[in-house]
């Protein structure tokens, strides 16, 4: 219970108490919060052997109770540790990265709030509490992206980020409500029991699965709702590292991991997942090849790596997915922080302004190299093991979906290798294109980078130890052994791929070869003319990738503009029609009054006429009435 509470307290203190406006106090508070969370997570990881759960009733709506439940198990703790590590690194890093910025105290508090929200999602025992953490993360990302006052496009990007995720969240809301309503309670344990117990009809499950998928696609920037992530780079780099690389975007994957039975029991949900993953993988990688801004390259690479995790989930390799999540968190955060250092040094995001930074920035160079190696999947580094595990389970999986994921995975390995190398060469080799004298970042920024380099490198070896695998197993109730347990045989239920993460043998060579091909291709193109951008090799394809397949344009045309037009139309209608009728009745009564008044603007005889006529008519009516 304590886990999310600590950073939440730190965040509240930072945000609300004005005396804490002083920079130092805010920094200390931020770092202390993150460190405490990390220590707590590690402590629990070590101490805990089986999943523990506490919950307290928050409120009762009719007979639907909402309780503040916390469910801690090994997988959750592992992710929590990852989040703690990255959060701590980012807090330390931002102290120096934002030393000039007077908004730092609010920034530090918002990061702690974000960490609290992420931890809440990780340990949530109740769907509604999950939803709370989920949305608070969204709002924190909105606040932090819009943090930089000077950047003109920051507010726009922030609004876009929040709205696109919010569109996804509508699906998430509905999915959660559907599950809650049909199981009669929002506790995840009850929901999973109901799912596995077969109380929910497959139709509801499919609907809930797809709706949750929409939320996940929004949050983890998968295909239809991914357009916000590249623009979110307008936020400060440590934020990109924390939110848009390691934690928030991974939350979507974690939720699918947590509610896996819902997805697996709903027929047709996993194939959709697979298709989305495949498309996003390729799309992200290809777009990264043509991007000139270093942060956008990394953003697109995040999109494609996330697609890997989603693909793994689609294929049923939940442990592999989680493992890749951990490794990706480490090396992507490292890459972003290092890129931050480079930008800090060179003063611009664009790679065309960088080059030849190998000598002036050795530390950044070597940590960036480890990161990129891990990204590409160079053998000893962490990325290799996790990506290999995914590809292996994809190849082993039954059904066309697994095949699609495997093919896309392989192709992406090549492209990833290509753009990673391109980034590596253009930033660190060739002649320096920037006027500023590049130098290594100050220690406060350097230490987190180095600290993150360690797990990027060594995390792979942890996978070797056998204890590691079952920690990552999906927290499904013990009796759930596989498809056979359910009475009505589910069609094409992917048998949970064997959880072995590490396996030597011929298969490992395939991805390695693909990576080598990618690296070689990039190196060759770059080698011919070090000054220009290897991306020109793409020729006509370049503008297409550059403009990210014009998806952004489509989204604007298909969604944003019609909604705005509809809004104007509805406003005009509302004001002229509804308001018109009301004003109309008012004016009508007054003019009617005028009419009747004019009838009275006559002389005395008319009054007498009225009297006699009235008497006559009344008399006639009465007599006729009486006669009836």
């Amino acid at each position, binding site marked *: 219970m304590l886990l999310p509470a600590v950073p939440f307290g730190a965040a509240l203190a930072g945000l609300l108490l004005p005396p804490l406006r002083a920079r130092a106090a805010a920094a200390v508070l931020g770092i202390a919060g993150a460190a405490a969370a990390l220590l707590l997570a590690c402590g629990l990881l070590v101490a805990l052997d089986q999943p523990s759960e506490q919950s307290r009733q*928050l*409120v*009762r*709506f*009719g*007979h*639907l109770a909402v309780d503040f439940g916390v469910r801690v198990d090994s997988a959750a703790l592992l992710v929590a540790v990852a989040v703690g590590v990255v959060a701590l690194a980012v807090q330390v890093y931002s102290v120096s990265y934002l030393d000039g910025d007077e908004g730092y105290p609010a920034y530090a508090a918002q990061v702690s709030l974000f960490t609290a929200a992420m931890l809440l999602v990780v340990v949530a025992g109740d769907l*509604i509490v999950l*939803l*709370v953490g*989920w*949305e*608070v993360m969204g*709002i924190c990302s*909105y*606040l932090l992206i*819009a943090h930089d*006052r000077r950047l*003109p496009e*920051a*507010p*726009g990007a*922030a*609004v876009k980020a*929040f*709205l696109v995720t*919010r*569109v996804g*969240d*509508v699906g998430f*809301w*509905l999915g959660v*409500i*559907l599950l*809650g*309503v049909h199981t009669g309670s929002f506790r995840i344990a009850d929901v999973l029991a109901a799912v596995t117990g077969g109380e929910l009809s497959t139709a509801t499950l499919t609907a809930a699965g797809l709706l949750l998928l929409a939320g996940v696609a929004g949050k983890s920037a998968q295909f239809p709702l991914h357009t916000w992530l590249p623009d979110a780079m307008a936020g400060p780099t440590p934020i990109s590292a924390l939110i848009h690389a390691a934690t928030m975007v991974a939350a979507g994957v974690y939720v699918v991991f947590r509610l896996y039975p819902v997805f697996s029991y709903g027929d047709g949900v996993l194939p959709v997942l697979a298709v989305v993953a495949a498309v996003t993988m390729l799309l992200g990688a290809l777009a990264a090849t043509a991007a000139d801004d270093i942060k956008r390259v990394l953003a697109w690479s995040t999109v494609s790596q996330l697609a890997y995790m989603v693909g793994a989930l689609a294929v049923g390799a939940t442990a592999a997915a989680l493992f890749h999540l951990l490794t990706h968190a480490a090396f992507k955060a490292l890459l972003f922080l290092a890129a931050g250092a480079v930008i800090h040094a060179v003063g611009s995001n664009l790679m065309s302004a960088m080059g030849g930074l190998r000598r002036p920035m050795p530390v950044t160079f070597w940590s960036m190299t480890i990161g990129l190696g891990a990204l590409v999947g160079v053998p000893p580094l962490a990325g290799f093991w996790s990506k290999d595990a995914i590809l292996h389970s994809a190849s082993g999986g039954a059904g066309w979906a697994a095949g699609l994921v495997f093919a896309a995975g392989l192709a992406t390995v090549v492209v990833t290798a290509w753009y990673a190398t391109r980034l590596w060469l253009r930033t660190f080799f060739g002649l320096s294109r920037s006027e500023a004298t590049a130098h290594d970042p100050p220690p406060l920024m350097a230490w987190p980078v180095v600290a993150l380099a360690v797990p990027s490198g060594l995390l792979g070896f942890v996978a070797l130890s056998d204890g590691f695998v079952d920690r990552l197993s999906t927290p499904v109730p013990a009796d759930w052994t596989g498809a056979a347990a359910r009475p009505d045989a589910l069609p094409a239920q992917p048998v949970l791929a064997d959880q072995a993460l590490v396996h030597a043998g011929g298969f490992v060579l395939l991805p390695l070869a693909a990576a080598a091909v990618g690296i070689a291709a990039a190196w060759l193109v770059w080698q011919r003319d070090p000054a220009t951008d290897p991306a020109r090799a793409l020729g006509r394809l370049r503008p297409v990738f550059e403009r990210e397949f014009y998806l952004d344009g489509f989204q604007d045309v298909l969604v944003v503009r019609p*909604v*705005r037009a*509809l*809004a*104007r139309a*509805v*406003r005009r209608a*509302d004001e002229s029609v*509804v*308001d018109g009728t*009301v*004003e109309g009745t*008012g004016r009508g009564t007054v003019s009617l009054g005028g009419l009747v008044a004019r009838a009275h603007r006559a002389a005395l005889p008319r009054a007498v006429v009225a009297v006699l006529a009235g008497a006559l008519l009344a008399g006639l009516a009465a007599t006729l009435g009486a006669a009836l």
Partner: protein
Amino acid sequence: MTAGQVVLILTLAVPAAGAVAVPLLPDRVARITGTGAAGLTLLASVLLYAGRGGTSLEPAAPVRPWHSVRGDWAPGLDLQFHIGVDGISYPLVVLTALLTLLCCGYLLGRPDGSRMLVALLLAAEVGIVGTFLALDLVLFFVFFEVVLLPMYAMIAIWGGPGRRAAARKFVLYTLLGSVLLLVGVFVVVAAAGTADIVALTGGGQLGRGTQLLGFTFFALAFAVKAPLWPLHTWLPDAHTEAPTVGSVILAGVLLKLGTYGLIRIGVGVTPEGAAWAATVLGTLAVAAIVVGALVCLAQTELKRLIAYSSVGHMGFVLLGIATGSAAGIQAALIGNIAHGVITGLLFFLAGAIKDRTGTGELAALGGLRETAPGLAGILGFAAIASLGLPGLAGFWGEVFAVVAAIQRGSPGWTVLGVVAAVGAALTAGYFLRLLRRVTHGPPAAVPVAPAGLARIELVAWAPLVGLTLVIGLLPVLVLGMAYGPVEALAVGVGG
């Protein structure tokens, strides 16, 4: 006369005395006594909670008031002075008292605050608290009407440039609503013989025909008050022209008269009518949500935008009531309180911005973050709370209204739930657009007079910010006491 009854009478007597005394005293003293009276009322309303005879969790008698006072006023008119407070009306009474106190305090600190405005605030408070406490249909109507003229005077005298037309539209539209309520009341009283709500709740004595007819009149009357979409056009004008204090009371509490009335009388006294009209009410509520959100997207004036956002939020509350289930009504109750607190805060802020920059036009505003960081921060908080961020007060009402709609199970209701959820997303859209226009971006040319927050403003707004957070984290505060009565109401409607 138990202590409870004395406190109950005090909650009404103190503001009434204040409203009479304030115009007679000299200016400064008058405003202080006015604020004092509002403070006392808040204290009295809070004390009502003590000695309430235990919140009845099981569905007890339909309406079991904690304290009630009963006296004959005009038997010739079936009018009994029967007031009482219970789980449903208690939070609303406290909210009214709090908002009035904050408004009086706000006026205390302002140079142009006038004692007549404080008097009108207290008079309006008498009407509103009376309506929440009334347990007699005719008394409910009398207090329902008491609110009318003070609000008219507030808008017509201290309002903005177009105030006369807006005030007249407001008073005529609301009067139309309340006369329909009068007809509805006497349709029921003529059929049932008694006007006592406690006796009538559950619709035992009334035949189906009377219930349907009665509910139609009630629904029309309360739809005008809590603006249900087609009958809402008085709200934006009234809000744009009303003074800050007027808008806060208008949005914070006056709209709740409509929804509270719908719950206590619409669903309570004529349940068959409520069940019969549920789908129509639900559809209109969802239309209110969507139209409110869309119109806000295209709004150009700050206060008008917040007014339309109230139409949207009340749409959620009305959706909750339309479902008729216990969950729905509870969602409506917490939606009421949350909207009262958040929109009250929003209007305070809108007033502050208008005072500082002299204009409400979004085009002219901008970059408030640089010029008045404190104000921008609180505006951001209020906007985010209002768009229904989970963890803040606005979330519970909206989500559980959708839950109640989907819980009804029929495809029609599920579609309504889904559209409502999409409406919620649209709400996020226009609030963030508002924030982007007003706080972010380069500082606009408009000079911002006092950049910092005046002490009085902080004092007025702090409780609201705190309350939003507390209700967001602990909704049980508001709903804890309402389980019993709501359960009984829902049983009536077969929810």
